[in-house]
């Protein structure tokens, strides 16, 4: 049987490339530049709607914070001994979301899963901004925000240092490390794209990109260094990401409060973090895809892969969640058991059950391809999953503080005040604002990596076709007839 080259090509594509058909390998490279740089210029009107709404929300948070700053934390309706509330819960939530960005990017990079390439840039940016948002909560939460720098280990004439035994200081160190490392990772990965921006921008923007691109020219030496650096950074960031949320979990696991003092917290927190991070990546995926017209790059198959990953994370989380309940139940620790029963039956019970439903039952919807490929459904679903994860954090913080070791001080009636809700809402505004601004200023899809992706796909295909052509027997087996 003799085939034309083109026929062979089609056959090869069917045989080898089908699974990888998540992006059209034949997009012109110049078009990639054009498409993605267009996101810096003229997004859809929805961008401005989101931006203005976010700013308004942010201002709500700011005014609440000013009020709280002036009056004292009492306005948040926190009390003794229910001293932590939505601030800490939302802090963990934001930190958690920050995990998937860099962790996913690094992990998939190391594993050479090239479908990460269109989505990793905004995920990493998301990480950076969620960390900034989370850091904001640490400050908002403090009684004396004006003295937050006491946590920082800085030399001073009084020879005072932070208490390095405190999980909060580990937190500060871990988050500081994670934030700066993520920023470095994001920035270094962005240099080739900044060079593209520089080459295409005019006016004052050119100056900015000129400065930021550091004179990148894409020489082979630069690329060689770049490759090694990027891989090395990825190797560091993966364990870092895992350690950060483990350390955040020690804030609770290392304390004596029943419901906090749980050995399985570090993996549980990491799983929850990845879970909610994936959910937010899906949310932002859909938002960016629409806002910046990225349909050709952020394709449905990639969304599906994300959804499958989310499902896996959800199952891991569910497992660890059940382990937590089980170990508490069988651990026969009276305090923890009572706290668990209180969570399931007390004032917070509706939220607790909702958390379990959203976190463990709802993800089963992701088992259906129809759900995974339906963009509006995925948008709603991802937001709901994330809400579930937020509830999880709140259900860790509040009910146990309301129902701790000491029965005299049980405090069942605490409910966050508008100040707490306002600042939580403001954090969304703050994050959205920063994130949208970022996407407007920097390419939110990595152009050079998409090109690499296309290049690899094409060379792979070329190689296979060449093999096919030179080996007719394979071609027959390849099912040309079909």
């Amino acid at each position, binding site marked *: 049987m003799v085939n034309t080259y083109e026929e062979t090509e089609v056959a090869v594509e069917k045989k080898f490339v089908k699974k990888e058909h998540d992006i059209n390998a034949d997009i*012109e*490279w*110049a078009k990639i*530049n054009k498409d993605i740089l267009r996101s810096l210029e003229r997004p859809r009107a929805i961008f401005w709607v989101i931006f203005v709404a976010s700013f308004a929300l942010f201002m709500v948070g700011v005014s609440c914070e000013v009020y709280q700053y002036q009056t004292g934390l009492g306005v948040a309706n926190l009390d003794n001994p229910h001293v932590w509330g939505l601030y800490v819960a939302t802090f963990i939530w934001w930190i958690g979301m920050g995990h998937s960005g860099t962790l996913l990017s690094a992990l998939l990079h190391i594993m050479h899963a090239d479908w990460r390439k269109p989505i990793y840039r905004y995920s990493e940016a998301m990480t950076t901004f969620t960390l900034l948002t989370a850091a904001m909560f640490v400050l908002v939460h403090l009684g004396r925000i004006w003295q937050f720098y006491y946590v920082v*280990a800085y030399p001073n004439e009084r*020879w*005072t*240092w932070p*208490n*390095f*035994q405190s999980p909060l*200081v*580990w937190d500060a*160190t*871990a988050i500081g*490390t994670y934030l*700066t*490392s993520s920023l*470095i*990772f994001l920035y*270094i990965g962005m*240099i*080739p794209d900044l*060079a*593209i921006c520089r*080459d*295409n921008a005019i006016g004052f923007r050119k100056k900015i990109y000129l400065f930021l691109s*550091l*004179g*990148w*020219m*894409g*020489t*082979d*030496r*630069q*690329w*060689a*260094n*770049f*490759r*090694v*650096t990027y891989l*090395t*950074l990825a190797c*560091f*960031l993966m*364990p*870092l990401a895992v*350690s950060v949320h483990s*350390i955040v979990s*020690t804030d609770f696991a290392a304390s004596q409060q029943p419901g906090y003092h749980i050995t399985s917290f570090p993996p549980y927190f990491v799983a929850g973090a990845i879970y909610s991070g994936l959910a937010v990546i899906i949310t932002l995926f859909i938002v960016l895809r629409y806002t910046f017209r990225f349909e050709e790059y952020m394709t449905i198959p990639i969304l599906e892969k994300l959804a499958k990953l989310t499902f896996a994370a959800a199952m891991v989380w569910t497992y660890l969640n059940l382990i937590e309940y089980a170990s508490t139940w069988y651990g026969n620790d009276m305090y923890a058991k009572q706290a668990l029963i209180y969570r399931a039956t007390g004032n917070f019970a509706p939220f607790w059950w909702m958390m379990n439903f959203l976190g463990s039952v709802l993800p089963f919807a992701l088992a259906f391809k129809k759900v995974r490929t339906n963009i509006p459904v995925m948008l709603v679903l991802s937001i709901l999953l994330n809400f579930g994860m937020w509830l999880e954090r709140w259900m860790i913080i509040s009910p146990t503080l309301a129902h701790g070791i000491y029965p005299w001080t049980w405090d069942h009636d605490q409910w966050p005040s508008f100040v707490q809700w306002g600042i939580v809402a403001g954090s969304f505004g703050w994050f959205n604002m920063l994130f949208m601004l970022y996407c407007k200023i920097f390419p939110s899809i990595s152009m*050079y*990596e998409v*090109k*690499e992706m296309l*290049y690899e796909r094409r060379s792979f295909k070329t190689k296979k076709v060449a093999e096919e052509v030179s080996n007719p027997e394979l071609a027959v087996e390849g099912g040309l007839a079909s």
Partner: protein
Amino acid sequence: MSKSHVMALFSDFDQASAAIRDLKSANLEGFKLDDVTLKSPIEHPEIEELLGKRPVYVRIFTFFGALFVPLLGFLFVASSQATFLLQPKGGKAVIPLPPNFVLTYEFFILGGVYMTALGFFICAKLPMKRNKLYNAHVSADQIGILIKAEDAIMPAIKDLFTKHKPLEIMWGEN
């Protein structure tokens, strides 16, 4: 003997690599592979087969960063605990090891990442001034080959380039 630069732009990597292959086989006097620079919109590790392995020293930085920063970090934490004598904690030593190991671990990552980044900037000579023989197309979809050579062999190089139908040939001071 003055040296000058020439750069040719090709529409794809195969053409460019063919041109380099030709250059190598042409045995021009005074031509060194070190003087050839490939400018590309994406990374082409395959080019090392032609140009030889470019040495990358980034990981030396990483090594030292990951080795010494945690060490210094531990000493920093321990010695600050030892000097802040007003803060003994009940049930703990003044210098307790488990928390310090947690911090040391973070310092390990910190050192690794920071030094890697520093190494990258140093090894890739960033920030640098872009040379004049740079074309914005290199960052889009074209491959540029920049050669530094003595003026004597320059015409030969240009001829060689022309044979491979470059999109453009630029020369001059870098």
